[in-house]
């Protein structure tokens, strides 16, 4: 699905008006929220990240160029804010001497129901941030590789590779959940 590009008829150099910003933000809200959730590794706090990013973006509207992708521009700000929050979390966890569980969900991860979902969330946290974001944009937002590439500012082939490898990595880590009827017996 192509990214919505309102036809305002304005010069590419004209700054984005705040009303336009609000409209574009709403059009991409779901995707931006997913980027934040993917980087944080959980949906919790994704809303705060998008809100904080929106405030920052409002102060930089003159920097947005109309002939470029709003999702890429806004996504970059969301990634920046989310990564900052991740660093703060890691610092806080270090101070609080949280138990070090490699690959475990962050301490504020939402409660998950069921053993499979718990393992899935833990497996997702073993992925690097960029592959994880590509994977979730593909699966949760059903974006094309071209759209993911634009949003993440990476080549299309790289976006595809991230998704393929991430899917395979998750299947491998969760292989015990494959149907026992067709598992190898020897």
């Amino acid at each position, binding site marked *: 699905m192509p990214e919505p590009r309102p036809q305002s008829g304005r010069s590419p150099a004209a700054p984005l008006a705040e009303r336009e910003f*609000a409209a574009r933000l709403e059009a991409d809200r779901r995707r931006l*929220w997913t980027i934040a959730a993917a980087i944080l590794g959980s949906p919790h*706090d994704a*809303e705060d990240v998008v809100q904080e990013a929106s405030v920052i973006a409002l102060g930089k509207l003159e920097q947005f160029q109309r002939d470029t992708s709003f999702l890429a521009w806004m996504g970059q700000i969301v990634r920046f804010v989310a990564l900052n929050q991740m660093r703060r979390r890691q610092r806080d966890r270090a101070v609080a001497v949280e138990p070090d569980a490699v690959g475990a969900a962050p301490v504020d991860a939402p409660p998950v129901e069921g053993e499979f979902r718990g393992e899935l969330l833990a497996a997702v946290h073993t992925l690097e941030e960029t592959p994880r974001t590509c994977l979730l944009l593909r*699966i949760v937002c059903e974006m094309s590789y071209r759209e993911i590439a634009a949003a993440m500012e990476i080549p299309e082939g790289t976006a595809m590779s991230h998704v393929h490898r991430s899917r395979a990595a998750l*299947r491998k880590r969760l292989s015990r959940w494959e*149907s026992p009827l067709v598992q190898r017996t020897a």
Partner: protein
Amino acid sequence: MAEDRDSLLERYFDGDLPQQQRRQLEADPEARSRIALQRQIDAGLRDIFSAGVPDAGSIPIESARRARGDLSWARLALYAAVIVILAGAGFWFRHSISQRNTFNPMRSPERIYDRLVRAGFEPEFVCEPGPEFVAAVADRFGEGLDIEPAAGVRVIGWAYDSDRPAAGSAYTGTILSEDMLILMAYVQEQPVIVLMDRLEADDRPRLAPGSDLHQFRRRLDDFVLYEVTPLGRARLLRDFTAP
């Protein structure tokens, strides 16, 4: 070979595989098993990463002001529009996916607001902004918050969530946690409350659908604050500061 199968599987998941090859893959028990697992993974990811809900919270006005200088009415209108958009989308999204945050009348902040207003809106503990205010918060949470005096705002003191059902009741929860403080104030002569608790206790309380009240959320350091107000926008939240 395993690699060939993995490659075919990825093309299968991307919908790029011709029909004949799809059928061949689906006829392979091992591939079929992996397809089933991937579908289970996809469904799980959609479930988990669709469950976080944009809350009916406000754009942090204080941060916006710092970032952008003075606030024009046009800018405030924009923030309000963004709030309404996020709140509306969040409301729909939360209702459609998450049962965790559905409205619970026993846990609604309206319950506290209504109780306090019915009782004459008298604080249990009178307190004004300043050192006494900071100390009261620190006494409860281990770290303090202050609120800056502002025109049109009259902070009158604290209340406590003493309206909890008796032991043995079916309802055993609280709005946030048992430590929650309730700040009482008048804004433009309207009674307004702020629920204050540790961030870790935040359970995203909700107002009743169609409520006459409005609720705004702010996260400040390790605190979460909910302003419950009959007014259309948050007025107290932006005045909180971490000393």
